[in-house]
C-alpha cells in the first residue's frame, strides 16, 4: 500500500505555478479542486497531492516551509488512519487530526471574507477627512524638559525596535535542520529495530524535503509501535505489517 505516491499523480502546470498563501490555502485549493467538503475523508484523499506539491516546489522555494511540513505531518496521520483502520492513535494525535479539519473550516471563512473585502476595495468610494487642525496657528511648543540626551535615548530605542528580517528564514532553517538531525538519529536506531533500509531512500531522494516528507510518513507509523514497514525498493509500495 503506497502512502506516498510520487508518480501516480501529476498535477497540472497551472496548479503548480500558482502561489499559495500557506499550507491551509494549498489544502483548501486541493479540496475545492476535487469539489469536496472539508472532512477527514477528503483530507486523506488530497494528502498525496499536498505532499506532491511540496516536493515539486522543491521546498526551498516555499515560504514558511516549516508550516507546510507541519500540516504534512498531520495529513500523513489522517491518511494512515484512513488506510489502516487497525492503527490506534493517541488522544493528542486524534485531536491534532480533528483540529486540522476545524482549522481549515475557520480559515475558509476568512479566505472568503478576504475575497469579499477585495471586491469592496475595488468598487467602494472613499470617505475623505480633513487635515488635522487646518487653519490653526503654529505655536512653538517644545516638550517640557527635553534634552539632547532624551532624543538620543528615543533614537536608540527606535534602532532597537527595527526588525531584523533575516531572523525569520534562519529560525525556519533551524527548525528544518533540527528535524533532519532528529530523523538521522531516529534512522540509526530504527535500522536496528525495523528491517527496512532507510539509507536507500536517502540516497535516491531528490532533495531534502523529499527525505523529510518520506520519513515523516514512515516515522508517524512506526511511532505507533503497532506497525513495521518494509520497502523493497524506492518508490515501490511500502509494505506495512502489524507488529
Amino acid at each position: 500500500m503506497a502512502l506516498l505516491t510520487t508518480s501516480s499523480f501529476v498535477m497540472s502546470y497551472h496548479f503548480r505555478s500558482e502561489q499559495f498563501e500557506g499550507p491551509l490555502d494549498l489544502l483548501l485549493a486541493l479540496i475545492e479542486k476535487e469539489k469536496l467538503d472539508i472532512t477527514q475523508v477528503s483530507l486523506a484523499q488530497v494528502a498525496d497531492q499536498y505532499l506532491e506539491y511540496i516536493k515539486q516546489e522543491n521546498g526551498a522555494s516555499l515560504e514558511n516551509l516549516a508550516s507546510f511540513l507541519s500540516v504534512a505531518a498531520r495529513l500523513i496521520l489522517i491518511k494512515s488512519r484512513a488506510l489502516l483502520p487497525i492503527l490506534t492513535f493517541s488522544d493528542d494525535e486524534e485531536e491534532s487530526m480533528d483540529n486540522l479539519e476545524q482549522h481549515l473550516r475557520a480559515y475558509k471563512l476568512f479566505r472568503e471574507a478576504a475575497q469579499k473585502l477585495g471586491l469592496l476595495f475595488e468598487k467602494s468610494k472613499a470617505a475623505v477627512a480633513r487635515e488635522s487642525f487646518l487653519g490653526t496657528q503654529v505655536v512653538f511648543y517644545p516638550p517640557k524638559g527635553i534634552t539632547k540626551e532624551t532624543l538620543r535615548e528615543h533614537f536608540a530605542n527606535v534602532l532597537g525596535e527595527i526588525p531584523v528580517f533575516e531572523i525569520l528564514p534562519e529560525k525556519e532553517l533551524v527548525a528544518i535542520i533540527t528535524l533532519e538531525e532528529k530523523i538521522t538519529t531516529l534512522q540509526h536506531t530504527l535500522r536496528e529495530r525495523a528491517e527496512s533500509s532507510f539509507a536507500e531512500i536517502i540516497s535516491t531522494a531528490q532533495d531534502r524535503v523529499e527525505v523529510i516528507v518520506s520519513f515523516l510518513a514512515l516515522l508517524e507509523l512506526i511511532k505507533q509501535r503497532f506497525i513495521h514497514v518494509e520497502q523493497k525498493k524506492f518508490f515501490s509500495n511500502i509494505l506495512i505489517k502489524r507488529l
Partner: protein
Amino acid sequence: MASSLLSALESLLFISGEPVSFGRLGKTLAVSEKEIHEAVAALSAKYAADEMAGLMILEDSKTVLLATKPANAPVVESLTKSALQENMSKAALEVLAIIAYRAPITRTEIDAIRGVNCSFTLRNLLLRDLITREGNPSDSRGYIYRPTMKFLQVLGMANVASLPDYETLSQDERLRMILQEELPASEEELKDTI
C-alpha cells in the same frame, strides 16, 4: 438632547480632522462619555437622513472621525487631485479581513488562523495605515492589532459592523478553539511530530 451640544460636537470634529477619542470629546464639552456617544449617534443619524448633507461620521470603539460622504468621492478627489486607492494582495486582504473581523487580535492569533507567519504583511499594512498596533496588556513583548479609520475611509464605511457577515464572523465560536491551539508553524509542534 441640547442642540448646542450637537453644534459644538460638529465644530470639534470639523476642526480636529483626525480621529478624536470619545473621552477627549467628553472632557472638552464637559459631558459624560455616554452623552457623547448619544450625541455622536444623533449627528450620524442627522447626516444619514439629510440628502443635502455632504458629511458622515466614521467611528470605532474609541474614536470618531468626520469625513465626506463616499458618493462625493469623485468630486473630492478631483479637487484634491489625490485618490485613496489601495492595491491589495491576497495575503494583505486575508490579514486585513482577520483583523477587521476579530480585533483586537494578537499576531500569534493571526498567524494561527492563516497557518503561516504574517509579519511581513502586518508591517506592510501598518505602513499603509490600514491597521494599527498597540502594546498587549497581557504580553509585554507582543502587540495587538486593530483596523484604522483609514481602513474605514478607504471603504467609505461608517464602522466595521457594516462589513459583510460581520455578526457571524466576529462571533464565530470555532475560532476560539483554533486560537487556543498551538501555532501550526511553531518549532515545538514540529518537534512533536517527529
